């Protein structure tokens, strides 16, 4: 349904080509496309308006860089502006010494507060800190137990206990204070105060308070939160927001910020295909940094926020950098180099092919993965690209003998039939696999200077796009002349 902004731009700005300077008339026409794209990405209207007007100011009279088309240049100006507005880049959580550093989570119902408490704890434990999780949601049925279960999971994870078996993860709750909706209001203040006393006693580095979800227009519940705020004066107050939120994100973020003076924002569920315009809206209206993004239900699914990635996502240009990182997590540098050397000589085998498929699968579902590629999102919906296909391919390759895997040209008709029987597929499918493999090894031979992501992209017929941080995606469909360099970035949280 949504064309990417870039596509729209190419239409709107085609007439601009060849002109050396961006002028008022052509900018305004193009800006309409920008507006629509941003609104479709759920950026709030007023934010869109102020953004477009500042972009127009910046664009007017700009010399068109020789390397870029005017359309591309406009996208670059918008892109840079988005990054600027959503920045600054990740700033680590400030811990006080002596502890405990008190962190309070707040937000609307179901935004992901409790889960994020578990994720933050996991993150801190990995840094060698000790954490107490305190259950101050006395209202949602099962909420206390939910946090307790998560605390248990954190404890079982990496670093959950000290070398001598001591506990790094503590859980605090007062079950007798749990009550039906509306009947426990105020009790959370006592629970939080007691939790702080307990955290001090246990010498915890960090105390994380999980509060009940509440609407920003519910005065009674907002008042409770303010009282908790006064009672324990948290060092960090984080607002947890669903990344799929629409225009209303500004209303709730603004109210929470006004009443609690937030220190940061955490956007959850970014593993969906949301364009995530709420990130921009919330940053604009609160002025508070986006600390983390949630990318899954598991406890390690928390990432630092990178403005450039979300900017390209909002613009529909895909989240290339995340893809690069995911790829790097699965494929070590040496492995990648060894494979590339083989490919360059056209020596890729079925085994290598299988390994690649497996590492791709480890990265996530095919669709979500390819969805991160620029411009691919909308086209993917109809492709029959699902994980079961990888399973079938895997089954076929595993049914091959070692010799066959090393040398695909051995695969004659009778061998193909045997493999089909062995893998529960059809000879036709095996033939398709062989054909596909030959094509890929041919292609990889030609593309062997490029990194894994460029290859993926080249295979999908897309040109290179934004790779290095802050650098503008090149939007024309040509292959790169130079070898793109990926910054090897080790994730701190792993």
């Amino acid at each position, binding site marked *: 349904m949504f064309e990417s902004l870039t596509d729209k731009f190419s239409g709107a700005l085609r007439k601009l080509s060849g002109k050396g300077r961006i002028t008022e008339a052509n900018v305004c026409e193009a800006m309409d496309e920008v507006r*629509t794209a941003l609104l479709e990405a759920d950026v709030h209207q007023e934010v869109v308006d102020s953004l477009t007007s500042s972009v127009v100011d910046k664009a007017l009279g700009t010399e068109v860089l020789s390397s870029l088309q005017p359309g591309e240049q406009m996208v670059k100006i918008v892109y840079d502006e988005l990054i600027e507005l959503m920045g600054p880049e990740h700033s680590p959580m400030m811990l006080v010494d002596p502890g405990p550093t008190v962190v309070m989570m707040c937000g609307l119902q*179901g935004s992901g507060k409790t889960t994020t408490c578990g994720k933050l704890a996991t993150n801190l434990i990995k840094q060698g800190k000790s954490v107490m999780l305190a259950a101050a949601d006395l209202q949602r049925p099962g909420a206390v137990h939910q*946090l307790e279960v998560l605390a248990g999971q954190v404890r079982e994870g990496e670093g959950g206990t000290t070398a001598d078996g001591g506990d790094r993860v503590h859980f605090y709750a007062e079950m007798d204070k749990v009550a039906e909706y509306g009947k426990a209001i105020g009790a959370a203040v006592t629970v939080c105060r007691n939790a702080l006393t307990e955290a001090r006693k246990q010498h915890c580095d960090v105390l994380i308070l999980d509060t009940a979800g509440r609407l920003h227009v519910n005065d009674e519940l907002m008042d409770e939160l303010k009282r908790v705020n006064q009672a324990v004066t948290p060092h960090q107050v984080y607002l947890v927001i669903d990344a*799929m939120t629409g*225009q*209303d994100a500004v*209303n709730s973020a603004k109210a929470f910020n006004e009443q609690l003076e937030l220190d940061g924002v955490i956007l959850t569920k970014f*593993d969906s295909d*949301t364009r995530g315009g709420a990130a921009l809206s919330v940053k604009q209206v609160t002025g508070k940094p986006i600390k983390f993004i949630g990318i899954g239900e598991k406890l390690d699914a928390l990432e630092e926020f990178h403005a450039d990635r979300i900017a390209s996502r909002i613009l529909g240009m895909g989240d290339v950098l995340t893809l690069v990182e995911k790829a790097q997590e699965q494929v070590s540098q040496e492995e990648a180099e060894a494979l590339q050397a083989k490919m360059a000589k056209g020596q890729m085998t079925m085994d290598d092919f299988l390994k690649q498929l497996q590492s791709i699968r480890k990265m996530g579902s095919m669709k979500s993965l390819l969805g991160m590629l620029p411009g691919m999102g909308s086209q993917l919906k109809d492709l029959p690209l699902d994980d079961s296909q990888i399973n079938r391919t895997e089954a076929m390759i595993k049914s091959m003998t070692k010799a066959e895997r090393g040398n695909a040209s051995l695969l004659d008709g009778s061998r193909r039939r045997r493999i089909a029987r062995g893998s529960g597929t059809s000879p036709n499918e095996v033939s398709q696999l062989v054909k596909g493999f030959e094509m890929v090894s041919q292609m990889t031979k030609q593309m062997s200077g490029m990194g894994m992501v460029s290859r993926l992209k080249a295979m999908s017929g897309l040109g290179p796009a934004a790779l290095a941080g802050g650098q503008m995606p090149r939007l024309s469909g040509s292959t790169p002349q130079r070898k793109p360099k990926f910054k090897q970035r080790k994730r701190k949280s792993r």
Partner: protein
Amino acid sequence: MGLFKTAFNKIAQGLTKTRTGFVGGLRSVLAGKPISDGLLADLETRMIASDIGVATSRELVADLRAAWERGEIETGDQVLAYLKDQLRAYYPDEDRALRFAEPGAVTVILVSGINGSGKTTSIAKIAKSLRDEGKTVLLAACDTFRAAAVEQLEVWSQRLGVEVVKGKQGGDPAAVAFDACAAAVARGVDVLMVDTAGRLHTQDHLMRQLTKIRDICAKKVPGAPHEVILVLDATTGQNAINQAKVFTEAIDVSGIFLSKLDGTAKGGIVIAIREQLNVPVKFIGVGETPDDVEPFEPGAFVDAMFAE
């Protein structure tokens, strides 16, 4: 008065809650003013602010403009009335009623949606209304994934005095659905409500799991599931279209439960969903207690959208 006989009272209440925190008051802009280009532009802005989406908002405004040019409407007040009529035509009454099995047979209601949208709470709401109408209800706790999800549903079952079939945390949700269907038939309950784990529409394997749960219901109970509800958080933006599309592909959604309409979000995206995917809205959620549910009423929905 039961949920399925229209009750306007609560909507009015729920929607008053939604009247705070608006960006500007369009109602006063509309009231008594002649239609003009400026007024239509304001309307479009307001529609977009309600998450109706750019394309659908423009279409709606184009319709209004056409009606204005034909001389059918002339004032701001008529604009509201016109929009309400349009929306009522869009959401006919019969589309908003729950579908039940033949009398004497088990009705299965499958409830799905993304994480945290309000599935479990919405089940408690519908279950209570059904119970109050004298129906026997059984709940199936098929969210075996999220921590304490089963416990949450159990708490509701105790508070409402209805029974629940559960498996163990981390177990196979399809197996729970199987057991629950068998139990529903054996016990001869009127309605079985199946709670499922939240899942993103982008998670293929989880969507397939949902299809499997649906298929098990269909196999175990004739004509099931009679109703497939997608619970949609009213604060959701344009991504809701993708959600509705993929869930509909997987389990043939028959109606939307629009939750959390007691905040400042307007939930306008359901209009785009209706237009593009033809999925009606059945209920709205206006709070966290089992009483905070109402049938969807297009007129009140429009009122809330343009309230001050």
